[in-house]
C-alpha cells in the first residue's frame, strides 16, 4: 500500500497481509442435491439442523451466545453444535447482550459469518445500541465497503406462560431501523430455509423465532428451498377478507379461518415470512381480489407493523377497498403476567371480530 508519510521498514513487514480473509467462498447453493432429504421435524429441530448445515457448508459461520454451547441453548436449539464444530466455532459468552452483538460486528469486519443468539426477546434491549447504531449502519457508514453478514437469532413473542421479559414482540424496533432485514418463520420448513438464507445474506438479518411454535412438527425438505427472503406465502386462499400476519399467529389465523367458514366468510391468509424486505405485491394482489384486509400481530397496536401495512394498503389500494383496513393486535400495555396473556394476545376471537366488522361495512 502507498504511504502518505513514508514508513521505514519495520519488524513484521514480511508477514503476508491477511486481506479479505475468506477461508472459503460463500456457498451459493449450500444444499446437497445428492440425497433426497425430507424430514419431519419440530421447528426447534429444523433450526438446529439449519445451524448444523450452515456450519458444515461454510467454516466462517460461528454460533455464540449465552448457554448455547455446553447446554445446547435453553430451548436446545443449538444442541450438538459445539460437539460437532468445536469451541472455536460454537461458544458460550459471558452474560452481556451488547457485547454479543458488538463482537459479531467485529468478526464480520474480519470476514467471518457470526450467528449470535440473544436468549430471549426482552434481552435484546441491552443490545439495542449495537444493533441500531452499528450493525444496521456499518455498510452505509463505510460506503458499502464492509459486509455485515450477521444473523441474530432471537426466540420471540408470547404465549408460553413465561415470566416477564420473555414474551416480547420486538420487530417494530428493527423494522424502523434502516439497514436490518427482519424475517419470522411460521413453519419448520421456513425456519430451516429462512435461517439458511439469512446466514448466506451479506446484510444483517434479525431472525425472530416464534417460540410458541418451537414444538410444531412439519415436513422439511433440506434440498429444495421453498421461497427466498422477501417473498410472502399464501397459506390459505379465500375470497372475502385478506388476513396478513406472520410467525406464531399464522396458525391462529388458519384456525380462525375454519371458524369463519361456518359464518360464510372466506378468509385468505398471508404469511409475510419476511417483514423487510416486504413482499407488498402479494399483499396487494390479494387485497385487490378481496377488497378487505385485517392485519394481525402480537405486539402493541400503536406503530406496530400493522400501522405501516394499513397505511400502505390504503395509500396504494384505496379504490379497491370495501372496508377500512383493521388491526387485530396486542394492546398498548406492557406484556401482561402469564395468567393474563391469553386475554392480551390476539386470538381467533379478536381476528373474527375484525372480520365481522369488515364484512358488515355498508
Amino acid at each position, binding site marked *: *500500500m*502507498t*504511504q*502518505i*508519510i*513514508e*514508513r*521505514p521498514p*519495520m*519488524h513484521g*513487514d514480511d*508477514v503476508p*497481509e*491477511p486481506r479479505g*480473509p475468506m*477461508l472459503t467462498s460463500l456457498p451459493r447453493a449450500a444444499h446437497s442435491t445428492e440425497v433426497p432429504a425430507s424430514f419431519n421435524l419440530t421447528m426447534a429441530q429444523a433450526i438446529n439442523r439449519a445451524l448444523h448445515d450452515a456450519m458444515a457448508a461454510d467454516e466462517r459461520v*460461528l454460533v455464540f451466545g449465552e448457554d448455547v454451547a455446553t447446554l445446547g441453548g435453553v430451548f436446545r436449539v443449538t444442541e450438538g453444535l459445539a460437539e460437532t464444530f468445536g469451541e*472455536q*466455532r460454537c461458544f458460550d*459468552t*459471558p452474560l*452481556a447482550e*451488547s*457485547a454479543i452483538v*458488538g*463482537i*459479531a*460486528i*467485529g*468478526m*464480520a*469486519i*474480519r*470476514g*467471518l459469518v*457470526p450467528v449470535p443468539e440473544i436468549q430471549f426477546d426482552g434481552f435484546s434491549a441491552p443490545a439495542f*445500541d*449495537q444493533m441500531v*447504531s*452499528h450493525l444496521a*449502519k*456499518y*455498510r*452505509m*457508514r*463505510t*460506503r*458499502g*465497503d*464492509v459486509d455485515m453478514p450477521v444473523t441474530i437469532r432471537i426466540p420471540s413473542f408470547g404465549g408460553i406462560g413465561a415470566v416477564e421479559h420473555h414474551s416480547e414482540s420486538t420487530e417494530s424496533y428493527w423494522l424502523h431501523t434502516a*439497514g436490518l*432485514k427482519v424475517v419470522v418463520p411460521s413453519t419448520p420448513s421456513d425456519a430451516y430455509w429462512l435461517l439458511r438464507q439469512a446466514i448466506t*445474506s*451479506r*446484510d444483517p438479518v434479525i431472525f425472530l423465532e416464534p417460540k410458541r411454535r418451537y414444538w410444531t412438527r412439519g415436513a422439511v425438505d433440506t434440498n429444495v428451498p421453498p421461497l427466498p427472503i*422477501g417473498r410472502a406465502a399464501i397459506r390459505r386462499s379465500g375470497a372475502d377478507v385478506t388476513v396478513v400476519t406472520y410467525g406464531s399467529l399464522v396458525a391462529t389465523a388458519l384456525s380462525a379461518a375454519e371458524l369463519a367458514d361456518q359464518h360464510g366468510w372466506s378468509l385468505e391468509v398471508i404469511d409475510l415470512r419476511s417483514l*423487510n*424486505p*416486504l413482499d*407488498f405485491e402479494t399483499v396487494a394482489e390479494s387485497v385487490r381480489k378481496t377488497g378487505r384486509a385485517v392485519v394481525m400481530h402480537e405486539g402493541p397496536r400503536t406503530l406496530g407493523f400493522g400501522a405501516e401495512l394499513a397505511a400502505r394498503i390504503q395509500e396504494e389500494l384505496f379504490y379497491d377497498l370495501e372496508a377500512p383496513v383493521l388491526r387485530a393486535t396486542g394492546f398498548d400495555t406492557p406484556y401482561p403476567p402469564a395468567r393474563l396473556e391469553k386475554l392480551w394476545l390476539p386470538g381467533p376471537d379478536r381476528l373474527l371480530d375484525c372480520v365481522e366488522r369488515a364484512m358488515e361495512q355498508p
Partner: protein
Amino acid sequence: MAEVSAASTSVDLEPVQLVAPDGAPTSEDRYTRDLPPETLSWLYELMVVTRELDSEFINLQRQGQLALFASCRGQEAAQVGAAACLRKTDWLFPQYREIGAFLLRGIAPAQMGAVWRGKWHGGIGFTERCCAPIAIPIGTHGLHAVGAAMGAQRLGEDSVTLAFLGDGATSEGDAHEALNFAAVFKAPCVFFIQNNQWAISTPVSHQMAAPSIAHRAIGYGMPGIRVDGNDVLACYAVTAEAAQRARDGGGPTLIEAITYRVSPHTTSDDPTRYRSQAELDHWLALDPIARYRAYLQAAGVWTERLEERVAAKSKRLRTELRESVVDADDFDVAEMFDTVYHDITPDLVRQREHLRAELSKEWLGERSDGRAGV
C-alpha cells in the same frame, strides 16, 4: 473451566516515561528508546504533520467550510506512538480524534475530511487500511475491536487489534463488556485509553472513583499500565510490549496514556466555562512535539533537512485537505440508498425513485440540485 487468572494484582501509578519533559532521557530501563534513526524521525514527521493538518482543519472550520471538527492537539505522541509500533495488518479501531493514527496508516486528508465536511459518515476507505471507520458513539467500538481480535484467533492469524478509547469512554457499559470479553477470551486486543483529562466538560475525576483508569485492569484480569501520553517513545514501547504479548497468546492489555486535550472538545465547545488557563498552561509546557524535538536534537537525529522535509510535507497535505474540502463534489444522493444493503430492498428502490421525481420538480423555484430551500 474454573481457573482463576494470575494476572497482575497491582498497577504502578507512576506512568512509564522514557523522555522527560525537557527532552532528556529518563532513568527508566525496563523499556528501550533505542529505535533506528529512520523510525525516530518518522515518528517526529508524523507528529508534526498531524498537528499541522489539525490546524488546517480548524482553519477550514472557522472559514465555514466544515460544520465541526474535533482537534487532537496535544495528543499527537499518544496516537502516533500507539499506532506506530503495530504491523500495517494489525487492525485499528479509532474514535474520531486520531488523525495521527490515520495519517500513519496512509489515510489521506481527503478521506478524513469527508467526515467533517459532512460528505460521508465514518470516513472514506478506512477499512482498506485495516482501520475501522470513526466511531462517534463513545466506547461502543471497543467491542468491535474485541470481535475482530477473536476473529483473528479463529482465522489463525497472529495479528492484533488496537482500540483507541478515551477517559470518558471507560464509563460506558460497552467499554466494560469489551474489556471483560477480551480478558475472558484472551483476545489479542490492546486497549489504548487516551486519558486527555476531559470528556467535554467532565473531568476524569468525575468519571470514576478508582485510583486510575489502568487500575480497572486488575478487576478484568489483565495487565494495566500507565504511560506518559506526551512521550511518544514511551507510548511506542509500552504498546509494542502489549501487542507482542497479545500476538504471543497472552491476551489483552489496558494502557492508560496520560495526556491532555489542548483544544476544545470540538470547534463548538468553549472550555473556558469549565477549566482554567493555569491548567492549560501547565499542559502546554508539557508539549509532546517540543519534548521529542529536544530529545532528537540531543540524540543527533534532528536535522535542518528533516525539519524542511516535514514542513514541505505539512504544506502539501494542508493544501490537499483544503482542496478536497473546498473543491470536491458531493456524492450522488443515490448513494444514500445504494449503500444501505448489499441487496437493495424493493421499498428502497421505490423511495430512491420518489426522490428522483421530487428533485425534478420546482415547487420552490430553482431546485435542480435539491438543496435550495432546505
